[in-house]
Structure formats: C-alpha cells, structure tokens
C-alpha cells in the first residue's frame, strides 16, 4: 500500500547519483573558481608590493676576495686603482709612475710597467672616466687615459688553451684577461695607457695638477712651487704632412695671496667639470675658489672654510661624477659633500663674483675618529666610497646621505686604504692599501631610494636648498634622476581639490532636488540620464578640456571668475522675485522651477560675460593675464594693485560670513515680524534682506581687500599666479563633470532610501518639503551623502586621461589655480611605457601605482563603512 500513490507515480526516495555528482561538481567548481578569482584580485596588490618593495631593501656587500698581498715590490701603497666593467682585470698605479696590472679573479700580476722615466711630482685621476694627468719636476704635464680595451675574438681564432673556458669564466693570458661571453665568443681585456707628449706649463716644478675635458679640448690647472696657479687650455695641433701632434698651451696664471695658508702650498687643487671654477684646499680646511671662466685671467671668487666646525685636518678630497660635487674627508672620519649653488635672492647674488657659492649639502656617516684616507666616486651614479686609516671602507649614496655598506679590513691587514675604486657598473668595490687589494661584491640596485628621499626633501646637486623634486630623465649621462613622489601626490591632491570644489556642491544640490522635489516619473527619466553620463569616457572629457575649453577659457577668465558669484546671485534674485507670485499660481507652477532656475542661471552667465571686460578693467588693470603675471619691479604699473584679486578671493568667505550674520540678525523679532506679514510684503522684506546681505558681503570683501592691499599683502604667488593655458581651473571644471554623476547617483540613492514614514510624518505634522528635506531627510542621509563624496574623491584622485591631457604635466608644487601640475596617474601614463623593466624608475612608478591603489582603496573602504552604518541606522528608524 505504501508504494501506491494517488497519481500512480512511484516516488523515488533516494537522490540519484547524477544529481549528487552534479551538485558536488558545482560546489567544487564554483568554490575553487570563486576563491581563485578573489585571490587573483588580491594578488594584484601583492604583485604591486613585490615590484615596489626592492626600492627600500638595503644593499648587500658580500665578503671580499683579497688579492695579491703585495703588488709593489717595495710594499708601497697605490695612489690609484681601477677595475674594468666586467670586473675581470684591474690595475694599480703607484706614486713613482709604476703601474701593476692584475687579474682581479686571482690577483696575479699580468703586467708591470713604468709609465715615465722620471717619477711625477703631481697627478690627478678624473672621476667618471679613465682620464688622468701627471706633472713633473721640469714644469711639464702629460695627460691621457689609463684604462682598458676590449677585443672580441671568434672561437676559431683564440688560442686553444682558452677554448675549454666555461661561459662567464675568465683566465689570465694573451697580455690581459680572456673571458668567454654568453654569445660564445671570447673577450680579451687588456690594460691600455695613452699619454700625450709633455706640455710645458711652468718654469717651476709643478706640485698640484688637475684636468677637465671639455668638448673644445682639455683644460688644466696646476700649482707650482712658487705658489702660482696656472690655468691652461690645451689644443692639439696635428701636422698634416708629418702627422705629428704638438700641443699648444694657452691661458693665464694667478699668484696665490700670501695671507692664506701661512705661505705654504695648498694640498689639493681641483678643477670643476665645466672648467669654470678651480678650488685650492689647504690641510687646515681653508680653501680658495678661483673663477676660471676667463682662462687668461683667473680671479679669486671665494674664500672658504671647508671645516666650519673648526679644528681638524682635511685628509682626502675628490670630485664626484660630473666634477661638480666635492667630497671632503677629514681626520675625524667625517665625509662632507659640497657643491656650488646659485642663490635666487638678488641681494645675495650681487655679492658673489661668479653668481655662485660653494655650500655644504650633505654630511655622510663616517667612522668616528678614524681619518679618511681616500675617496672614490661612481662612474654613473651618486655613489661614493671612502677608505679609512684603519683599513676599512664605506660605501655611500651621497644625495640622500645614506650609508650603504661598511667593509671591515681584511684579517690581519692594518694599513690605511690609500686608493679605492667603484667598478664601472657599480657592482664592485676595489680597495687598496700597502697590505694589498681587496675586491668586494656590491649589490645595491637602488641606492637613491629610501623612504626619506622619496617622501622628504632632498638636496640635489645644484639646487639652492633641499626640495621635493620629480625629474626622472634628462639628456645627459651625468644627470641624476630625482624621485620625489611629493610633487606628484601634490598634483593629485590639487586636481582632486579643485574638481571637488566645483563638482560636489552641484551634485549634492541636484541630488536633493531630485529626491525631494521631482515627480517620481520625471525622476525615473532624469536619474538614468545622469547615470549614463558617469560612463562618458574620460578621454572625451580630456580632449574637450585640452582642445576646446582651454583655448576658450583663456579669453574669458574674468567673466568666468565673476560667474561663480553672479550665477547663484541671479538664481536667488529670481527665487525672490518668484515669491511675489500668489500662492495658488506658485503652487501650480512649482514644476517649472528647474527650467526657470536654469534660465536665471543662464541670465547670470550672460550678465557675467557682459560684465567681464568691466571687471577686468576695474579689478585687474584691464588685462588679467598681465595682472597675474606681474612681479614687483619698482616700476609703476596698472597691475600693481592686488585689490581685485583679494576681492574675488575673499568674496566666498564674506558671503558665508554675511549669510550667517543676516540669518542671526533676522532669526528673532524680525522673523516673527515677517511671518505676520502678508505674502507680498513678506516677499518684499525677504528680497530686501537678501539684497542687503549681498551688499554687505560685497562691502566686507571690498573693505578687507582694500585693507590687505594697503598692508602690502598680495595673493599673487599663492593661490593665483601666472596663467598657463592648461591649468587646474580647466581640470577642475572638466573633472567636476566626471564626478558629478557619481556623487549624484550615490547621494540620491542615500536620500531616497530614507524611510518613507519619516518623510510622511514630517509632512503630516505640517512641515514644508523644504523643512522636511533640511531637518529630516538630509541629516538622516548625511552619512550616505558623505560616502558619495568620498567615492567621488576616489574617482578624482585616480582619474588619468583628463589630467594627462589638460593639466600640462609639469611636476611643480604650487597652489596656483591658473597653473598646471602632474598627478601620480598622469605620470605613470607618461613614463611607464618608456621605463626599463626593473630599473629604479620602473619600480618607482609601481610605487606610485601602489600609492594610488592604497589611497583609493582606503578612501573607498571608509566610504563603504560609513554607508553600511548609515544603512543600519536607516533600518533601525
């Protein structure tokens, strides 16, 4: 009986296997795919972090390989060492002119030769290349290069003994070091010296010498026994017939004043990279800077003290790449970096001989109490190394005062490091002392980036003071990329701020009207229409901003500025006029408020444009561009008065202030009096009140503006300054377009989701729609509106195309609304396609992307949290 059912169907009591399998399969598939999708999205953040993180990792210097303990036969210490770019071969140069070339793998000497018959009396090795100059007792100098040559040999032609080398391995031989390259052929690195014929520059023995290579030829400075500084340009003249080269030396000299150094000779003489300034340094820290722009008449430019703290002895001096930054090491172990700056103040500038002065920009962390014996600079970056008297060495990144690594002395070695060299690819450090040489492996891929240097002010070479700078590329090799994110962050904030100032009020006003006053049927049409605008591609807005609005706005700036005040004024005047209508008619026509309000706004705009030239004449001396660009120069000018600018700037504040004042003043008895009046009378009273308030705000603004102008304050240089065609005003305007639909939609959603019974209760108690909106709906929906603003902010921060096309893209820190900026997002769009993968710039751009990600993610999460709270509260009501 149990099997008999009414329908005759037999009920199956077990679930079929097929259903079970399908169910399980769906569960597994959906769970894995769903989780995988979510994990993949999270992986994006992880990936960005993984690319950006190496920027902040400290460098590694791995254990040294001590090379041949004794390079020189007489246990002398080298004065100069160098490595080739593959770190396979090196040479050490000694004070007597002897050069020992060695295999840097084993330290075995390859070649030993004497460069000159006579030992030189002075020498200089130019950082950032293999240039060198030697001076001799007979007053002659010889300059040239001491470096390496590379020769590539096919496997078929190499000596058989090298054919068995593994790729990357090297072996001594054939007058140098042979290495098998990745492409299978062999490279032979050999030492090469090429020195010029002697050129006589002085009758006396030369004691100090330095050289700079210009495109026109070498320029050298030398100090001879008689305390005379010679500045000479060398020209090479080639005889066409005999092909012999002769050197012609021309230039001038200057006697060093006897008052300095107690008549002693300086210990260092250096010539800057552009050969426009020479520096003479005495051991006690005193120094003279000579202006050598005119080589025939060198002149004293500056007297300096390189040890301003007093006491101490200078023990090592060297230039960095480009020969502009000077490293100074003293007996107390401190290493300072100095360079010339050009003061921007006219008064300071006038006091200087060549318009510049040498300042100490960086102090590096030395070994306390141990004298610095040698300094070396990298060939490509701002890395520098210092060798100390106790045999230790330190590696620095100079621009951000960062100690990258410390290299302790080798076991049992105690001699001072007399020479050291950073390998050409910044991947090795060779230190040399009387004990021998040691080769350190250096792995510091991003020496210039620390949290401090990315987000803080950094004193870059040639800048007057520490500054936030972003400048990632330039034409020259000696250029130092500057990676300060602050100007870009600032640009993003500036763009966002001006866009929000324009977009937020409009969007919120529109949202309140839509939710509280619009007929539901109209609302159902209007809202989707505005939502569609949210997906208007931003490249369209960018194009309109840059090519249509920027040239247009340029011609009507005063009218545009005026319209910010005139349009609301016109709307309010129209509203007050409307109040004169009898109640019945006003109620019947209430639906026409939007078109009429728009008409009033249009009238206001027309009035502003009609009055634009007049405003320009009264406030800005007839030409706002000229007014904005005016700088005080002592000349009388129609643009000198800052009154007009102050007036416009202060007007918003005075409006708010007088609004508040009028509201306060009319809240008590006056309000009661107006409420007792007839409608037309009340309307007239309201209009009078409004006009009085407007006049008051204008008067207050004018008064304050006059006072501030009289006191000599000028808004120019702050929020307003010289006009640039692509500027924050344009971006703010067009980006306002981009965020209005977003803020509008979310705010409207929040307003409409306020429970209907609250609205009904308020209206039922006799409150007008306005009172309901202001006292009930908006306060309840406040958190929702706030979250709408936050979401709009998130969109504005990351917007790319509009700012890329309309903001001019100069990374400057300036609030000027009439100037451009560069945002994080635009910077990524401009620079990432060209950045070399995994370079510092590439990682910096990832860091910029990560900052944007974090910024918007945090803002949005906060907004979401607020919105959820709001939803809960709205439910509870």
């Amino acid at each position, binding site marked *: 009986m149990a099997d008999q059912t009414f329908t005759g169907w037999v009920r199956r009591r077990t*679930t079929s296997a097929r*259903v079970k399998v*399908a169910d399980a*399969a769906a*569960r597994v598939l*959906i769970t894995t*795919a769903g989780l995988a999708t*979510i994990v993949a*999205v*999270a992986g*994006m953040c992880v990936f*960005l972090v993984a690319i950006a993180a190496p920027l902040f990792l400290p460098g590694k210097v791995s254990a040294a390989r001590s090379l041949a303990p004794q390079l020189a036969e007489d246990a002398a210490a080298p004065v100069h060492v160098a490595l080739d770019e593959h770190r396979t071969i090196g040479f050490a140069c000694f004070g007597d002119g002897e050069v020992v070339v060695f295999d840097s793998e084993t330290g075995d000497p390859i070649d030993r030769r004497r460069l000159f018959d006579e030992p030189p009396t002075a020498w200089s090795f130019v950082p950032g290349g293999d240039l060198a100059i030697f001076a001799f007792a007979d007053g002659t100098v010889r300059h040239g290069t001491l470096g390496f040559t590379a020769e590539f040999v*096919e496997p078929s032609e190499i000596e058989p003994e090298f054919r068995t080398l593994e790729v990357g391995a090297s072996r001594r031989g054939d007058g140098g070091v042979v290495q098998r390259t990745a492409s299978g052929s062999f490279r032979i690195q050999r030492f090469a010296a090429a020195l010029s014929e002697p050129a006589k520059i002085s009758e006396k023995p030369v004691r100090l010498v330095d050289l700079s290579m210009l495109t026109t030829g070498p320029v050298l400075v030398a100090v001879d026994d008689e305390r005379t500084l010679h500045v000479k340009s060398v020209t090479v003249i080639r005889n066409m017939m005999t092909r012999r080269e002769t050197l012609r030396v021309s230039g001038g000299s200057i006697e060093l004043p006897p008052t300095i150094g107690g008549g002693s000779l300086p210990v260092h003489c250096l010539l800057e990279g552009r050969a426009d300034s020479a520096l003479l340094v005495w051991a006690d820290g005193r120094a003279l800077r000579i202006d050598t722009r005119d080589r025939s008449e060198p002149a004293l430019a500056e007297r300096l003290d390189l040890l301003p703290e007093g006491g101490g002895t200078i023990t090592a001096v060297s230039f960095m790449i480009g020969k502009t930054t000077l490293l100074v090491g003293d007996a107390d172990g401190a290493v300072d970096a100095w360079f010339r700056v050009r003061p921007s103040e006219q008064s300071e500038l006038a006091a200087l001989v060549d318009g510049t002065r040498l300042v100490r920009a960086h102090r590096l962390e030395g070994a306390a109490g141990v004298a610095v014996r040698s300094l070396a600079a990298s060939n490509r970056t701002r890395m520098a190394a210092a060798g100390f008297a106790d045999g230790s060495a330190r590696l620095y990144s100079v621009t951000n005062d960062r100690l990258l690594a410390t290299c302790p002395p080798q076991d049992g070695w105690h001699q001072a490091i007399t020479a050291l060299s950073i390998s050409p690819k910044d991947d090795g450090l060779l230190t040399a002392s009387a004990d021998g040489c040691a080769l350190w492996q250096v792995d510091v891929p991003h020496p210039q980036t620390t949290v401090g240097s990315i987000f803080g002010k950094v004193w870059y070479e040639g800048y007057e003071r520490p500054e936030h700078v972003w400048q990632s590329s330039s034409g020259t090799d000696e250029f130092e990329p500057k990676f300060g994110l602050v100007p870009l962050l600032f640009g993003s904030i500036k763009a966002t701020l001006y866009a929000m100032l324009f977009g937020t*009020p*409009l969007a*919120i*006003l*529109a949202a309140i*009207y839509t939710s*509280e006053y619009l007929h539901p049927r109209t609302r159902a049409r*209007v809202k989707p229409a505005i939502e*569609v605008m949210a*997906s208007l*591609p931003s*490249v369209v807005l960018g*194009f309109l901003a840059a090519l249509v609005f920027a040239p247009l706005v340029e011609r009507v700036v005063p009218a545009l500025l005026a319209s910010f005040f005139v349009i*609301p004024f016109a*709307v309010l005047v129209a*509203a*007050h006029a409307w109040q004169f209508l009898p109640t019945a008619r006003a109620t019947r026509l209430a639906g026409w*408020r939007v078109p009429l309000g*728009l008409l*009033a*706004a249009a009238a206001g705009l027309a009035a502003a444009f009609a009055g634009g030239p007049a405003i320009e004449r009264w406030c800005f001396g007839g030409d706002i561009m000229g007014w904005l660009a005016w700088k005080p120069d002592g000349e009388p000018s129609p643009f000198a008065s800052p009154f007009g600018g102050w007036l416009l700037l202060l007007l918003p504040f005075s409006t708010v202030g007088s609004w508040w004042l009028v509201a306060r003043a009319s809240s008590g008895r006056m309000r009661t009096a*107006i*409420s*007792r*009046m*007839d409608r037309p009378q009340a309307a007239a009273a*309201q209009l009078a009140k409004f006009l009085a308030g407007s006049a008051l705000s204008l008067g207050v603004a004018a008064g304050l503006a006059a006072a501030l102008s009289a006191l000599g304050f000028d808004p120019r240089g702050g929020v307003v300054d010289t006009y640039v065609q692509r500027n924050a005003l344009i971006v703010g305007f067009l980006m306002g*377009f981009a965020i209005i639909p977003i803020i509008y939609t979310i705010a409207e959603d929040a307003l409409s989701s306020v429970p209907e019974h609250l609205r009904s209760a308020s209206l039922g108690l006799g*409150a*007008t*729609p306005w009172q309901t909106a202001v006292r009930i709906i908006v306060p309840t929906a406040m958190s929702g509106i706030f979250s709408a603003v936050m979401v709009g902010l998130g*969109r504005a921060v*990351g917007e*790319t*195309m509009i700012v890329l096309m309309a903001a001019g893209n100069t990374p400057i820190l300036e609030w000027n609304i009439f100037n451009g900026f560069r945002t994080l997002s635009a910077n*990524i*769009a401009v620079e*990432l396609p060209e950045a070399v993968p995994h370079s510092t710039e590439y990682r910096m*751009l*990832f860091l910029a992307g990560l900052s944007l990600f974090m910024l*918007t*993610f945090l*803002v*949005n*999460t906060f907004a*979401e*949290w607020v919105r959820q709270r709001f939803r809960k509260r709205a439910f509870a009501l």
Partner: protein
Amino acid sequence: MTQLAPAPSTLTPQPRPRQPRPSHQGGTLLAAGEPMVWLLAAGLGMAIAMISGLVALVVWNGAATFWPVPVVEVRTLDGSIHLGEVVRSDTYRPDEVVLQSIPEGDREAVRAAIEGEGGLASRRLLRTANFDLSGTHFTWVDDFSIAPGGESNPEWAVVVERLEWGRFVGVPLRGEQGGAVVAEGEEATWTWYEDHHAEARRLWRERRELKSDEMGALNRRIEEARLDLRRAELREQAPPEWVTAWTDLSRARAVHDESGIEASRSRLAAIEAAGFRPNERFLEAIEGYEAIERSTEGEFAALRGRIEDLDAQLAAEVMVLGTVDGQEQAIPLAEIVRAVPQNRLSWFGRLGVYLDRWMEFLLDDPRESNSEGGVYPAIFGTVAMTLIMTIAVVPFGVLAALYLREYAKAGPLISAVRIAVNNLAGVPSIVFGVFGLGFFCYVVGASIDQLLFSASLPNPTYGKGGLLWASLTLALLTLPVVIVATEEALAAVPRSMREGSYACGASKWQTIHRIVLPRALPGIMTGAILAMARGAGEVAPLMLVGAVKLAPELPIDGTLPFVHPERSFMHLGFHIYDLGFQSQNSEAAKPMVFTTTLLLITLVAMLNLMAIWIRARLRRRFAGSQF
C-alpha cells in the same frame, strides 16, 4: 498654501462669530524656503544642462565634420587672395599690429568700422590647404580686410582629398595622360576626371593589395623559415659563428668565389675542430631555409616588376589644378581619394558626399598620420578587445558572485571580501594598467616567450603589450562590476522561490541552475553590458598594455592562425588621445577627433542604454510582488 480654517468647536453650544486670525502668510513663505529650493533646482538644471550641452557639442561638431561646406575666394585689401573652406568664425579684439597690416589708404575706414562695433571684429578661419605649396593648412581672414566685392564662391573650386600632403583646393585646368594633354578647360577636365578616376583607384587598390598581401605573404614565409632555422640552431646548440660561416660558404658557392669558399671552409673546420658537429637534421634545416630564400627571390622580383608596371601606369594619369594665386600642381589620379566641386553641388549632392565620407570613415584605414581617412582598425580593435574582455570576465565574475552569495558561509570574512571587491571598482584604471604591464606583459608574456617563442627572441612576441593582455587587464578592471551586478541579481531572487525548490526536493545545484540563475540572468546580463561599456571607454590602462597609434595589421586576419592575440591594436579612445594630443596638425585633426568621439560615446551610450533597458524590464517583471 491653503487658508487654515479654525477647528470646529464641539464644546461650546452656541456658535461664536468667526474671529479673523492673523494670516501668517509670511511665515508660510519663510518655511517654504523658496530661494534655497531654487538653488537646488538650479543645481539640478545646471548639472543636466552642462552634461547635455557637452554631449550636444560633441554630437554637433562630430556630425558636421563631413558636410561639404562652400568654398569661398576672398581678395583682401592688401591684394592677397585666399581660397578655402570656411572652418569656423569668431570675434576678437584686433590690436594695432593687425591694423598696421592694412594698406594705409583703407586703414582709417577700417579703424572707424571696428570702433563702431565696440572694438570687436569678426574673422573666419579658411582651410586654404595646399600645404605642399604654401606650408600652411589654415589662414585667418579678417572680415574688415576683405576688399569691396572681393568675396565670391568660384563655381569650379574643387576640394581634393589626397593620399599625402593633406587637402588641395584649386580649379581643374587640364588632364594629362603620359605627358600629353587629353582634356583642357574646367568642365572638360572634370568630365575626364570623373571618367578615369574610378579606374585609377581600382589600379591603386590592386597595387596596395600586391604590396601588402602578396609581398607580406612572401616576407612571412621567409620569416617563418628563418625562425625554423633559429629553432633548429637552439635545439642543436649550434654556435652562431658556425651558421654565419655556413651561410658565407653557400653565398660564395652561389657566385663561384673560390677564395671565399676556401676561407669559409677553413672557418667551419676550425669551429668543428672546437667540438661542434652538425647533424643531419640541422643540415636539412639549413638547406630548407636556403631553398626558400632562393625560391622567394624569383617571386620577389616578379612582384616588384608588377608593382613597377602599375606604378608607371598610375603615374601617367595626372590632373593639373591651378591654385588661386596662379600656381599649378599636378596630382596623379591615383593619389586622389575624392575630389569634390563643393560649390556646384546640390543639397542631395552634398548629402551623397557626406555619406560617402562617413562610409570611408567607418570602413577605411587611416592616412596622413591618422588625421584623415577612416578609423576601421580602431573600431575593429575596440570591438575585438571588448569581446575578448567580456568572454574573460563574465564566467569568472559570475562564478565569484555565486560563490559569495550561494556557497560561502556568511560572516565577517565574506563581508570584508565583498567590501574589498566593491572597492576594487573605485581603484583607478591606470593601476590596473600598471599591473597588466608588470604582470601580464613582463612576467607571464616573457615566460611564454621563453617557452614557446625563444626562436624570435630578443624580439618579444607575448612579452609586450598586445590584444590579449589588454583584454585581460580590462577584464580584471571590470570584474567588480560583474560581481556586484550578479550578486545583486542573485539577492533579488526571492527567498521563497529557493525554499519552494528545496521543498520539492531539488538539490542546491538544481535550485541554482533551474530557479535562481534563470531569474537572475537579466541582472547578470546588465552587469556584463555595464562591464563592456566601462571597458570600451577606458583608455588609460590601454596606453600601457598594447594600444598603439597605428597598427599595421589587424589582430584577426586571414593568415594562420587567424587570431593573433599578441598583436598591438588600435582603439577608438586611444585614437582620440593620440589625435587630439599628439597630432602635429591639431587644427586639421580636431574635426576627426570630434567624429571619433561621437562614435565612441555612441558605442558606450548604446551599451549603457541597453543595460538600463534590461534593468528596467527586470524591475518591472519582478516588481509588485513584494509590497
């Protein structure tokens, strides 16, 4: 507001006479807060007006681009003559410098006329074209500087759209064939042109196909053979110098250079002595490559011959036009895309030209560094990218939403995930571009290259921006849109329906599959379409992961394997950016930018409207049952 009536009193027995109460109309007025309401209303009005004004601006300018406008000839007071289309006009404030350019005799009259207008003067921008002769595309003409009676619309002024140098404006003088004059005079030349132009263009197209298709096919064959050889080289680990020596040897053999053969032989012997022995397969690969190189050589020569023949034929037919200042310019018929005597056209004639230009715009390749011609590759790229993106994003988005809504246990973790997914929608698109470039191109793409395309390294195949990576990047970008929309659609399915299904004994998957998903489908489709709309309009990430200003080949074409997801592509949005921002001749490019913009916003708006329409239908279908 209505008059407040006194409440009827039921307590007092006798009716008292009505007391006139104070009206308090003023109070009502204050409470209505009308001025503030007006501000709200004006805010809404301005928001709508600005946005619709913006759209109207784009639509108007975009639609007007191709309309043939009259060509005017103006003779100015100082005697110069300009002929061109009027692009736009405006009013400005001429300064003294402008006035100095007016001949002295007329200066005072002009000055007075300007002052009569309040210091304003109107001027027109003429597209005088003829860049190859004059060095400029546009000329401003002040209305006050036009000589009396100096303005006319010459009947035979012809605007010629050329392949190079931009447009040409002039009067047809004669037609020449192989140097001999075959037609003379405006009308005869024009008739001759109309008779011969179509044929010349047909030949030109033939030549283009020869050059791109057949030449391209040959090049591809050689390139493939070279890659095969390189693959064999990598497989056998042949030293490159052996291969060069071998090629030198075969070249020397081909020209019977005995000493060369000897030298290459000894080089080979030396390398082989060093340990390398080529095996049979490797030698075959080399021979195969050489055979292809030899066989294509003949074909190349034949092709080149044909192209040269066509070139000669095309260069023979020339139309000579005279400019307004008396110069002559000969333009080969094949170089003329379109010549329009704009002043002779009737309204319908203009409409024909207008539609013809639209067709060219939609279906042809760009020319003149994108500022002329069509945007077909960009439309194609946009659509292809959007489709691949949709295929990638919808399944994963739906699965993730199903998991979140149906399978995951509700808790703080899931709501955190939900918030995070929601917020991902607000992360700037450029960040996705950064991720796409770093991860897809440089990590995934580079790995694919290492594994599968090592032969063509160091030239990247997948290790650079391309259609696939762009689509995947945008898929990631639009994932939150799909997830959120799907979740909403799933949540909108009433609980009662699920419960009913379970009560009937259906399993979870059966319920989802038969009850939930069908009801949620419109919502999911809305999400997908919204994602497409967002993806189609997004440009910033594409700049990093594969959109280019000019892609020589479409990502889908007739060569195997037909779909090339690694190729760079053109995109409407990027086209706008590139034209508007990077173009040399931005004034000439501006109309094209407007038209492209019109096309893009039409595309995006259509997708959006579709989504809204589906949503509205969905709401109507499910509305009413709840409340």
